[in-house]
């Protein structure tokens, strides 16, 4: 799918400036600057332990930031509890999906549904869920669970959807089916999407822009097209090369 540039004037839903994030006061992510605009998909890439998940957890309010600022929808949100952020329209799909295994698919969706939202358009987007609406979430296959996790995040009508490692533990064919859904979410609902992904080529197919983290620092950023065209640069950045923006080709 060709990546299209988001309108330059589209407003930023998420602006992260100089973020320091980590555990027990020890920073893992240092000095991260990042922006996600409404209606665009942004990929956060990097090798294991680069600080991608820590960044997402901090953005979603599950970890308190150690420094820097996070602004969501024009308001500073550093340290705001996760459930308040979720109500304000920031929805995280965590790595372990955090589904309610004992509730059915329908109940999972109904519980998350925003007052104005409906399950209908989400089911249109993820028609596979329609046939297992009355099955307990714990009994679904990995791919179906991931769809439900995304679906459950979408029924909250988020302004920003944050997805961690969507491809984890899933067959490539399922991943190829799922990742483009994010693109349609961004275009169809005008949602900003920030996605962490190990599967670099797939992520760059779906995303408009990407950031690469190594050892907790931003080492490369640019449009997906730029990064796709310069695999050597991408490899170098994975290995922790210096901070720079990808030169345009």
């Amino acid at each position, binding site marked *: 799918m060709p990546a299209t540039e988001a309108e330059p004037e589209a407003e930023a839903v998420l602006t992260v400036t100089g973020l320091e994030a980590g555990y027990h006061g020890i920073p893992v992510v240092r000095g991260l600057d990042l922006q996600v605009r409404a209606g665009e998909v942004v990929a956060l890439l990097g090798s294991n332990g680069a600080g991608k998940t820590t960044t997402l957890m901090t953005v979603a309010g599950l970890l308190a930031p150690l420094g820097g600022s996070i602004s969501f929808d024009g308001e500073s949100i550093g340290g705001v509890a996760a*459930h308040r952020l979720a109500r304000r329209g920031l929805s995280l*799909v965590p790595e372990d999906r955090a589904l*309610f295994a004992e509730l059915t698919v329908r109940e999972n969706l*109904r*519980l998350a549904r925003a007052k104005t939202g409906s399950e209908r358009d989400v089911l249109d987007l993820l028609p596979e869920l329609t046939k297992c609406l009355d099955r307990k979430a714990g009994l679904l296959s990995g791919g179906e669970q991931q769809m439900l996790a995304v679906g459950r*995040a979408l029924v909250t009508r988020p302004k920003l959807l944050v997805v961690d490692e969507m491809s984890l533990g899933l067959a490539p064919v399922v991943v190829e089916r799922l990742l483009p859904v994010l693109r349609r979410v961004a275009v169809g609902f005008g949602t900003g999407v920030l996605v962490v992904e190990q599967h670099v080529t797939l992520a760059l197919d779906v995303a408009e822009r990407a950031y690469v983290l190594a050892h907790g620092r931003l080492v490369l950023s640019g449009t997906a097209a730029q990064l796709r065209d310069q695999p050597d640069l991408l490899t170098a950045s994975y290995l922790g090369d210096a901070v720079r923006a990808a030169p345009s080709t």
Partner: protein
Amino acid sequence: MTSYVLFLLLGLGAGSVYSLLGLGMVLKYRSTGVVDFAQGAIAMWGAYVFLRLRLTGKLELPWFALPHEISLGTGMAIVPALLITLVYGTVLGLVVFFLVYRPLLRAAPLTKVCASVGVTLFFEAVAVLNFGTTATSAPPVLPSKAFVISGVVIPGDRIWIAGIVVAIAVALTVTFRYTRFGLATRAGAENEMGAALIGLSATRIAARNWVLATLLATLSGVLITPISSLDPTSYTLFVVPALGAVLIGRFESFWITTAAGLGLGIVQSELVKLQTVFTWLPQQGLSDGVPFLIILVTMSLAAKRLGARGATGTLRNPSLGRPTRPGATALLAFAVGVVVLVALHGSLRAAFMASIVTVCLALGLVVLTGYVGQVSLAQMSFAGFGAFVLSHLGHSVGMPFFLALLISALSAVPLGILMGLPALRVRGVNLAVVTLAAAAAMDALVFSSVKFTGGLGGRKIGSPELFGLDLGIAKGNSYPRVVFGVMLLVVVIGAGYCVARLRTSATGRMLVAVRSNERAASAVGIRVAPVKLYVFALSAFLSGLGGGLLAYEQSSVSSSTFTAQASLSLLALVYVAGVGRIAGAVVAGIMFASDGLFVSFLDKTLHVGQYQTVVAGIALALTAIQNPDGVASNMAGERGPGPRVAALRDRIIPRRHRPVVLDVPGQDGAFVEDVAGPTPVSRA
């Protein structure tokens, strides 16, 4: 036939109480994972509030010493009194939740149980202080007019109360299945992070459920009083049958819990009738005991159906100690113990002796709950059994005390193994409740036997003798005698030494392996079932030993010492003190035991006197919140006194082993292999 129907209907009263309390407990468990033993105490408090409002128009506040009554005029009618009581219940639920359970939401289940025992003690003690211990009867709340249908007299109030219970159960079932609130509660309990990610606050959901459950407790208090007279302690005991119903409902189903509660009440009532028909039936304890036997047996057999939260992995294990140099520690402890015995006099010396006995009882839990992670709420039943066996042995003249003590301790072992059987199939909180049922059955069936326990007055115990030497706690005017204390020290420190050696032995490693992961343990060739039975047997032995010592210490033995409540308190004390360590047992005995050294000292210096139980309740809940892993774990930490005490011990009794000096070529220093790890030393 009609009289059987009448007894059935009468049983609905008690059954409704169990169901109502049980429903509240299911609600609390499903939303917060707390098995709230304080539900009965809250019901009792609610009953007092309602009763005082009706009779005197005064609103009772749950504290003591300060003014605790607000006058709202003269006696009230039922409706306004009920409304005020329910509002009161709402506030009470919120306060208790945010003060006690909110800080413990992520704590281990047993820590929560300890806090709930603290809450129970608090309310019981405040009620005793403010209302006295005399039972009060209350005017009827529900229409009590009896009506007759085809010759059967039907007591109206029983039908009403049962109807209310069923209606509440239906309402709860529907709410949990079909409303957003119910869905949110189920979701929040299952996956707190998932709930937060869709905008639900798990804390808020838990708080709402807690309030709802507190309202149920209050309501049950209000409804019970006209049926069963009100006093501070008996209501808290309703928790035991209620828990039985909850267990049958698997901590999950409202309507099964309700049916089980009603069923229990009916069975108890019919047993009373049967006792009048078949006079050969035991006349004591039958109606109280049999339902628990039923619970015990069905739960052990139907264990596969048990599941929910308590099933696997939810019992987070407390941290374990690893004793170093048990021999030297035991010697030193003995020396310190003798010095303390000689230095103290009168009531403080007696309190120190009580502490030593508690240490022995606590050791049983260290082995069982600490080392193998099995929960038992029947430890005092083992102790009681041992003590009563000792009281019977004492009459056979000439038996050296240690032999009598050994036999009495051994007599508890078969009971321990019996209790271990359910543990082969049930885990965690479910096991706790099953053992509680067993303890309640023991209370009702064994300890109520006048022949075995001597009835209310209990049985006298002769002085321990060794080759003609009287080691008793009292002789003539001298009480308490040092020689008795020395005997206690020898026995208990000996037991502690054995436990320490067990912990570091190959068997000890097997125990800890089973605690960590039963499947992994069997994968490396450990047979889990025998290990569990072994540890239950050992724990029962230590408890029996403690029971025997307790009997010697008190010179008599009475069944009121060994109730299920006492077992619950013991577990709470030892858990908060640090159940994974022998030091925890010592802390429990010296610091926490209600008749122990520290509490008696406080009593003597600060004159806590009548407030002792209230303070104990608050202290227990606070300690559980502050030290979720036990006081002894904190003490053993780097900043605690543990390492310093160990260093002092090593200075007084230096290590005698020869260091192995490893010569490392090319290095300036050699390394000495030591228990504490390699230490560089300079080459001689």
